[in-house]
Every structure is written in C-alpha cells, then in structure tokens.
C-alpha cells in the first residue's frame, strides 16, 4: 500500500515537475519573444520606458550611420563589404582633388538620427499610451520635438512632448525626456572631418602620424581598385567603428 502510495506520489511529483518545466518553457519563450520595442515596459514609470525605447532606436541609428559613412540611406555611395558606404569627399575626374560632400558632418549625423528615430519614438509613446490606458487616462500633445546632439563621448536625444497620466485626482505630467547614449560618434565625426579636410587639400591623410598622436583610435585606409578609398576609424577601447569613403586624386593607369 505504502509502495503504491509512494508510486502515485512519485508520478504526481513527476507530473508536477513536467508541468512546471512546460510552464517555465512557456514563460521563457514568451519572455524571449517579447518585442524589443516594449523594453522594460513599466507604464507607471513612463520616463524610464521612453528613455529605454528611444535608446534602442538611437543605437540602431548609430549602428547604421557608423557603417554607412554618416547616412541612414546612403546616396552617392560605394558598395564595400556588402554595404553601401557614403562618399564624404568625391570627384569624378582623375587627377583632381575631391569636393567635400558632407560639410558640417556632425550636424548631418544629428539630423539623420533625429529623422530615423522620430517614428520609433512616436511609436514608443503610442505603445506606452496603449499599455497604460485602462489604468490611467492618458493625454499626449500632438507636437513632438526631438533634438539630437553629438557631444564628446555621448549622443544625447532630447524629446519635448507633453505626456499626462491621470488616475482620479492623481496626475503625473512629463514634458521633457533626455536620453544619453554613450558613443564616440562626435569624435568619429571630428576625425572624419579632419581626414576629409586633409584629403581635400593634400590628396592624403597621415593616418599613421594621427594614430601615434592619438593611440586611442585606430585608422585603416583601404584603397580599392585604384578608384576609391575606404577609411575606417576604430576606437580601441570599445571596438566601435565609423566607415566612410572618398574618391580623390585618382591616378589613371598609363597607356
């Protein structure tokens, strides 16, 4: 009898363990499948949610811009390692110095990030609103001002939008969201500007000398098919890169 009971108990335990495993698996699958854009969705802390959600969008933008010469959708670019890379300095003719295609690179990148993140940020607010509705009355201003700024060692995104959460008498109101993303994009853009300036003036950039003076950066120059040059700037401490192309002072083969 005891043996029977023990056996039943044992089966029950196994069943319970199996159910627990299945539940655990379901939880894991659900957790993994949860869309990234919802981030750490905590509708009671909209500041944190919007910052997290925006941060992902900015990271995506930075990743694209870094590998594509400062553009989200490169135009006037060359295919390099399977990715379109924008020319920051370009000249069609041979034996001529290149024309600077992207003066004010920092401002351009800021604008690219702002444009890329705008819809995603609006989605973040919309998702937050949908999640919070039911428990809160949500009011959002139609106007959303997004300002991206490249700063030394960081990229800041400031969102000006009125977001009001009301539950009975309790009102919480947010107007300003500031997101800081640690990224050397400002430094990359400054170095790229210096490279383009020197290339446009001297047909060359002394990347070796630069690396000796600034060992925290690694610069690679890859001239392809006697036609265009790809510069890669890498921050040694983070391995983050910025890639761009130039076509400058091309010397034709003899004939």
């Amino acid at each position: 009898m005891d043996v029977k009971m023990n056996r039943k108990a044992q089966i029950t335990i196994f069943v319970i363990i199996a159910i627990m495993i299945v539940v655990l698996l379901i939880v894991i699958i659900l957790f993994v499948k949860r869309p990234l854009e919802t981030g750490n969705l905590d509708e009671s802390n909209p500041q944190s949610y919007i910052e997290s959600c925006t941060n992902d969008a900015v990271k995506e933008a930075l990743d694209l811009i870094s590998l594509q010469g400062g553009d989200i959708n490169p135009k006037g670019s060359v295919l390099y390692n399977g990715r379109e890379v924008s020319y920051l300095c370009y000249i069609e003719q041979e034996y001529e110095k290149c024309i600077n295609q992207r003066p004010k690179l920092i401002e351009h990148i800021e604008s690219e990030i702002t444009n890329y993140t705008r819809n995603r940020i609006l989605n973040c607010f919309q998702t937050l609103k949908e999640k919070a509705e039911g428990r809160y009355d949500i009011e959002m201003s139609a106007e959303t001002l997004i300002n991206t700024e490249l700063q030394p060692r960081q990229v800041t995104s400031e969102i000006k939008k009125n977001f009001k959460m009301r539950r009975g008498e309790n009102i919480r109101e947010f107007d300003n969201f500031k997101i800081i993303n640690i990224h050397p994009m400002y430094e990359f853009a400054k170095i790229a500007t210096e490279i383009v300036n020197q290339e446009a003036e001297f047909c060359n950039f002394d990347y070796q000398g630069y690396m000796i003076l600034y060992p925290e950066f690694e610069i690679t120059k890859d001239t392809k098919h006697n036609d265009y040059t790809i510069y890669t700037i890498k921050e040694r401490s983070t391995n983050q890169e910025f890639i761009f192309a130039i076509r400058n002072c091309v010397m034709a083969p003899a004939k």
Partner: protein
Amino acid sequence: MIYKYLNKRAATGYSQILILVLSMFAFSYVIYSSQNVDAAEPGYGCCEKTNEGHLCQYVEEGDCSGKWVRSECDKTDYCRTGCCISQKTGLCNKNVPKLECEESFDNDVSCNIAECESVCCILGEESMWTTERNCQVEANFLGIPPEFDLNTKSEVECILLTEGDEKGACILEGEKCVYTTLEDCISRTGSETRFHKTFCSDPELNTSCKSHEGGKGCVEEDVYWFDSCGNPEEIAEDCDFMKGSYCKDTVMGANCESIDCKIDEKSRKNGESWCEYDDVIGHGTDPVGSRHIRHICIMGEEKIEPCSDYRNEICVEEVSQTDSGKISQSACRVNNWAECLNYNNQDSEEKLKEKCETNPDCYLKTIDARGGSGNFQLTACLPNYPPGFDLIKELDEEDIAKTESDSDELNSLCDVASQRCTEVWKWSLFTGWKCKYNCGCHSEQFTKEMNEFCVSLGDCGGYINYNGDVDQAYQIKSTWERAMPPRLSDEDIMKIKSNAINPPAEPGSDAFFEDMNSANLITILPKISGALGSALLTQILSDNNFTRAVRSTSPGKVDFSRYTKEFNLLRTASEASKFAKKDNTGSIIGAVIGGAIGFMIGVLLQVSMMMSMVFALIGGVIGFFIGMTKTKIVHIDFNCLQWNPPAEGDCNKCNEDIFCSEYRCESLGQLCSVVNEGTAAEMCTKKEVNVSIAIIEPWEFEGDGLKIPTEGIVYSEVSKKGFRVSSEEGNGCIEPYTKIEYGIKILTKEGESQYAQCKIDTSAQNNYDEMQGYFSEDYPTAYLPFHKTSFFFPSPEALKNQYNLSDEQIKNLSEMKFYVRCKNIKGIVNPEPFEIKTCVNKGPDLTAPRIQKTFPENGAYIEFGKTNQDIVVYVNEPAQCRWSTSSGKMFSEMENEMKCNTGVFNFTRYGLPCTTTLSGINSSNNFYFKCRDISENLNTMSEDYVYSLKVSQSELSITDISPKNNEEIISGFEPTTVNLKLITSGGAENGESECSYKFSNQEEYIKFFNTDSSYHEQELSSMIGGSYEVEFKCTDSAGNIAQNTSSFKIRIDDIGPIITRIYYDSGLKVVTAEKSECRYNFNRNFIYENASVMESDEEGKEHRAPWESANYYIQCMDKYGNKGGKFKAIAYGLYF
C-alpha cells in the same frame, strides 16, 4: 599621463614623422595645382547634383539630376568651392561647394582664415588642437571654462602639454568617495573642504572604499590599482609608451604589454614602417601586376597599406638612427615615371644625364648597336619603376571605330621603344657580304637591349607578370633574312630581373627626416614637386608637350612593310641599288688598273697592238670584277608592344593577397576578373566565356560620325575564306594616296562575338607567331571582338618612275593579298588563314597633288617684329612645290622653290614634307603655294593654296602683377594663402597667353592654374612668413615671350593688440597700439564673441565703454584675428 614621458626630443621625432607625411601631401598637392584637365571637354559641364547623388561634379548633362551649366564648377556661383565654417561646432571644412554652405562660406578653400586657425585648447585634464570656437563648444558641453595656451604653436606640443589638474579624494554623501579634481569636487559637493589630497581608500577618510579591491586597470598608458569603489589609486605598473609598452586590459587583468611588433622573427618598433615588394624592383624590372606595399607597426599590430595600383605610387624607405636604435620610415609616394620620359626632350645629352641621374625614379639607359661605325646609339632616360597599364581592354564597337592612329597622341607608351636601325652591308669578291655600318643591330644583344628599353616604359615588351608568366610582346622585322636579330628565349627574359636595384626604393632628393623649419618649407615644396614630379605627371598626362617629347624619340614614318612584302623587298633592292651606283668606283678603278696591266703585259710580250688591246680588255674585265663591290641597306625594326596576360592563367594567385585588385587580377590571365566587387566575397576568378575557333567576318560600323569601312569603300567577294576591300567607283581599285579604313569582327561558331588577337601578313605560310604584324593599329596586341586597320598606298606609277620598276613589279604592287589569323582568349588560332584582297589603281596618275597640312597652321600668328618664318608644307604625294607673294602665277613663274622630300619612304602621317623660309612678312602676309607631282603627267595644282600669317602688333607684356614688387603681406597665421595674379596685354591676341611662375630657388616654371587668357591666377595656400622672389614667364600663340619678376614679403602677425592705456574719459577709454576691436565683460571667464563691443574711433585705436563701478575684463583683437590677453581694469565710482 601617457604623455608625461614624451619629452621635447620625442616631440621632434613626431614632428619629423609629420613632416614626412607633409612631404607626401606636397606631392599630392602639386597634382592639383598644376592641371586643368578636361577644361574644355565638349558635352561636359558643372552639375549641382549627379544622378548618383554626388555634389558639384563636372559631368555630362545626362548624368546630372540637378542644375547643369556648360562650365567648370569653379566658374559657377553655386559650385565654386571655399571654406565652410560650422556655426554650431566651430569646425571648418575645406573645399566645400558654396551651395552646401550658404550662411558661413569663405572663398579660401584651404580655410586659411582666422576662424579656422587651430589653437591649443585646454579643457580640464585634456588638451586638444582645435579652433577657438570648437574649444568653447566643447567646454560648454563639459560645463567648464576653456583655456587657451597661445604660446603653443603646434599640435604635437599641444598634445604633450597637459599634465592635468591634481586629483584627490572627494567625499560624497554616505561615505561615498570619488577620485577627482578639486574643481569637479566643488561642483559636485559645493565645498572645498570635502577635497583631500589622498586616495579614497585612505583609512583616515573613513570611506567605504577598500584599497586595491578593485584590482588593476588601465589609465591611459599605465596600469593602476583600483579601490572597491572603482577609483584609481597608485600606479601598479609603469608602462612606457616611448619604450614600446602600453597598458592592455584583458580578462586576466591589466598589464603592460609591448606595442612593438614581431614580424618574421624581426622586431619592429611602434610607428616603424617599411616597404615590401612582390618581386624585383628598379631599372624597369618591376613585373606586370606588381604592387609596392607599405607595412606599419602600430600598437603591436602590423598594418598593410598597398601603394596606389598600376605603380602610380612607389614605396620608399629610409632608415634613421635614433636613441633607441635604427628605425625605418616609409611612404607611398607618387611615381615620377612620366618626368623621366620628359627629360628626353633636353637640348643636350649632358642636361639629360644630369636631370635623369638626380631623379631617383629614373635611370639612364644607353644602347649602342654601332658595332664599330654607325649611328645607332641611343641614350634615354627611362622610368626606374615602369607604370602599369589597363591590361584588359573593354571597348565597345564605337570605341574601336574611333581613329586614334591619326592623332598626335602615341597609341601607347610602348611605341617610344619602337625604333628602326639601318645597317649597311657590303659585298666583294673576296669577303662576300659583310656588315659595315650599325652592325650591332642584327645581334641578340640588340634585341635584349631594345627589349629592356621597351620593358622599362611600362607593361610592355617581353617580360613577366608577378606570377612569372612570360609574354613576348615585341616584334622584330628585318628587310633581309640574314640580318634578322634573334628573338629572346623565355630564359633570356627572366634574366632581365638581374638588372634590378637593391630594394627599397629611394625617397628622393628631399631628405624626409631632415629637420625642416618653416622658413625653408616653401623652398622644399617646389623642390619636391620638381624632384618627385606629380605636377609634371599631371601636366604630362594632360598636355601634348609630353607626346611631343616622346614622339621625338619615336619613328615618325609610315611603316609600309606591314602592307606588302613585295614592296618591302623592293624598297631594299632599290635603295641598295642606289648605293651600289654610288659605290662602283672600285670596279672602274679595278677595270682601269686591270686594263693597264693587261696592256703592259701585251707590250712586254711584244705582241701586236691588237693583242695588247685584247690583253688590256681582259685585264680590264678581271680588274673590274676584282674591284667590284655591292652594298645592301637593311632596315631592322624593333616594335615594342603592350604586354598581354597569358591565355590560361592562375587567377587564384591574386586571392592570396589581401590587396588583390583589378590590375593584379587581370595581369594573371586573359580570363581573370574580379567578381562580387564590393562584397565580402570579392575575389579574382576565371570568367566563363563561350569561345571557339575564331570565325572572321568583315566589320561594318556606322554612327557618331564614324564609318567602317571608309565612305566610298565596300566589302565584296565576301565568303567564309575572305573578302575584298574595294572602291565603289571605277574598277574597284583604291585611289593611291588615299587612306582607307576597314575592319574585321570575330565570332564564335554560334555567331556570338568573341575576343581575339589578330595578325596580318602577306604570306599564307607563316604560322601565327611568325606573322609580321598585328591587325589592329590602335590596340595591336589587345584581345578584342572588333579590329580595325588602315590602308595607305602611293601611286605604283610614281614608284615606277622613282625606282625604275618593271610592269610585273607594278602589277604585284597594285594587286595585294593579305592573310589574317586570330588567336582567341584560350589561345586557339584559326588554322586556315583568312584572305583579304585589295588593289590600287596603277595609273596613269591624273590628279594634282594636294597640300594637307602646314606648320605653323594657316592663319597663325607670328612673333612681333619677325620678318622671316620657317614653315613646313605637307603634300599628299611626291611633288615639287613653289611659292610666291603674288596670286594667280603659273607654277613655272613662281619665284621661290621649296625643298621637298619625294622619297615615298619618308611619308609622315601628314604626307611628304616640303620646307621653306617665307621672307618679307611685314610687307605681305599672304603667300601663294603651288605643287606639281613627279608622275609622267606632271600634274600641277591649278589653284593657289593661299597661306597667311598674322604678325603680332606689339610685344607681349605683363602689365600688372600681384603681389606687387616689394609688397609686404601681413597675415595673422601661417600657412597663409597668397594669390599670384598677372595681367598680360599686347602680343598676338591682346595678351592671351600661357603664363608660368617659379620661385628663385626653383629650376622649372610651373604653369598658372588659371591661364590661357589675359588674366592669370594661381593660389598658393601653403605660404609661410619670409621673403620671396618670383619670376613670371608668359608665352602667346605666336611665341612672343614676356617676363617679369616680383619680390614680396610675408609677415606673420600672430600677436594680439597691446593695450597701451586705460583711463577715464567720459567713460572707460582703452587705447591700443594697433587697429583693433575691443570687447569687455564683468566676468573673468567671458567668451570674446559673447562680450560687449567697445565703440572704436575711425583709426580703431581708441575704444570706449560706458563707465560702471565694477571690474572690467577687456580683450582686444586685431584685424588678423589675433587676440590679446584679458586685461583687468577696476573702475571705482566717480563722485563730482
């Protein structure tokens, strides 16, 4: 911290490295300054935005999606380039089109303006070399006031400057602590008392931070201990960047690691760079497809920088001795090969040698084939590192149809080494045929030397690619089989490599690492441009002078041997017979002596007079034969051709390097090409193409003003075996002295186009390798789907008269048959030759000669005051020409005879030359020419050829120069930009001329960037303080020359205005020593741009501000942008 060990000597080292790079820049710089390629290219214009999205490019209208103007971009308002200053960041951008920068644009493309001058900016612990505005922007981000070290004048000094503020423990709330500066601590805590000059882990501070518990970590170059709060403590390992160690953080913790490199058991120091080569280099031995590679050791890793492909750049290296041993420095710099060829245009051999031997990119080659007596001795300056060619021609039908062979351009650089040597052989009864003149030309040595000459010019001649595959791209022809020089074996060709120099390549005459100060920089830059030649490279490649220079060494005569063997043999025979006629004196003397001896024998034998006469006759005949000699003229042609990749090559060899390129790939085989370009899978592979034995058909093409065959010519009798080239008119034979073009196309069995190389010969017997000439004139050795050639033949009748030919010979000359064979890209040749027939009208000649070209051109200007002019008139057939100053005269009445060359072998591409000197130009500028041919009909021009010359009305003169003589240019910074400007007047066309300049220390004049009008301008953007003397030379189309000089001085004013007085005068009054603008603020850390502007007087030396009882901080800036120090003035209240 890392830089605390970087002492002054190290800084000098770095500055030298920078100078090395600056010198490289200089090469590139002159590329730009000296050329104006495509300036007048038809169909091109300035495009605001191309279809591909590029801004301000000089392209065809169809490639443009924005505004397009038929002009160079620099001449448009929207695309002219300048300096763009970012208002937001304070950074400057060079060479920016105006449309991209409307609000803050400056015309100086090099940004040599005050706002863009870099200063040493100190932000807390860090220093950086940037613009003042950018420094302020970054300071704002960091929330700290910027500081400027105005005494620091270079980036290296600035970077080495900062030691950083002293740090200490800053006690925060709840026993927390951060290790930071006093300033930061005050900003965090609001109190100075919370800052302690010790570590956070100091037990006396009672913080929660525990010493060394955070392990070791990197702080810049050194390894530090960290406390449990993550604050750095004392140094754990002192790495020495200068001695080659640097902190590296790994999973095992931080430690000092070497940043030197270990490469093939050899240690290379950080920053050291060196050259490597595929194979041998120098003396023209660089194999086809080879590339110079620069290696750099940086932070413990080896980086590879391939120099520019096609050997447009070479890797140069120099080893210098430093305190820590020998260190090699290298650079990829422009290969000055074109300059070497240009030197061959020198007046004397001494000058040629001097120039050639001092340029490390050139070497002097002497070929002496005289073999005792003769004239075939050639000294040429050749590229040490021959340039690479575009090996696989991808030309469409239209490209091939375009006639290039008639232009003044050389078809290929290889043509320079195509030379003819003429040998003279003599025959006598006792010696047989013996060479007497230029006897080295039929030797193997001749082939070897000429091939080396050929190989040095580029990817030409019999040589190898970097994989060792041989191509024998040269031809040797001789008009006498016996005097044919032997060809080289593949083994002989490999021996060329033994001529190579010991690597590495020399840097050049500018000492890269010599200590250069700014005063002599300007003297070095032009020297570099002269020695290393990028300016000339560009000039040469875009200027006809180059082709003229090299043409002077190449044969300018039409090679008839390619058309008919009969003709070729005839030529030799007829010329030899002319020599034989001249040289029959031996026979006559022999006959006379023999006759005399015979007669004397008769007399001695006391025979009758009659018998004595018989003896004399016999003696004379014997003497005649003994004394008889014969002379033969033998022409030996060495034709240098472009090197061709092997039919079957190892394409995969290219993928062994990370720097495989189109050029390297294509050098390996006809079918090798780069696939998946721009992707990670980019590689060199063998193309899959459909090939078969070449099916040859006549090629017809019409379009864009081109027609193959030539208008009036048709293909007839077309079959699988051949076709006939006929005239549409008359009996189908082609008129003599008429150049016609025709072509063939190469198909597969399926009727698709295929690429092949084709040869043509007058003999059907020869196999492909023995065939005399290549079918294509413009691209002789290229594998193409279409091949075009031309046909030009003099009148057989004229030849008959000139060389006394028989009717049979005339018939052979007028009816011709050629045999064509083609080799496809897999090396398969059609076994049966393809026949092309044609005929030339054999006469009689009924047409008068025609003047085809003159030098100077008809209507050209001549120099002011000149009354005589030498001219050359080219006639289409052998003729005599005369000239008169009166029109309508008969040929026989014309007073002046020209000296005409009537030998048909002297035909040039313009015809046969006649020369004369026209006199009395002042009184009459119109001259009347008539020519009469030398045929039996003596056809004469019925109408005068009217030739006119325009005389320059005045001397060419330089009327205005800027900078003016003895002018002093003051600039607030260096380098600064100076514009050389000239205005010319007079001469042939109201001052329109080409002007050049040179500084007193330069040898060669450099062409102005903007010239070829009466206004000439050159921007010099790298000028530094000092005195300069510049010489100008302008030449107009008539050859009038104007010269002038200007001496000017550049003074650098980099000191801010000095405040000489401050006092009360109805307000605060400040007096400065020079014209300035002054601003004030009551905060010590004010930013000049944001401060209040003081009211200045007209002279700009007295400045006023309202009086307030406060501490004034005043700063003044002069017109060059130099700011003085901040001056504190304490104003007390005034009581009246």
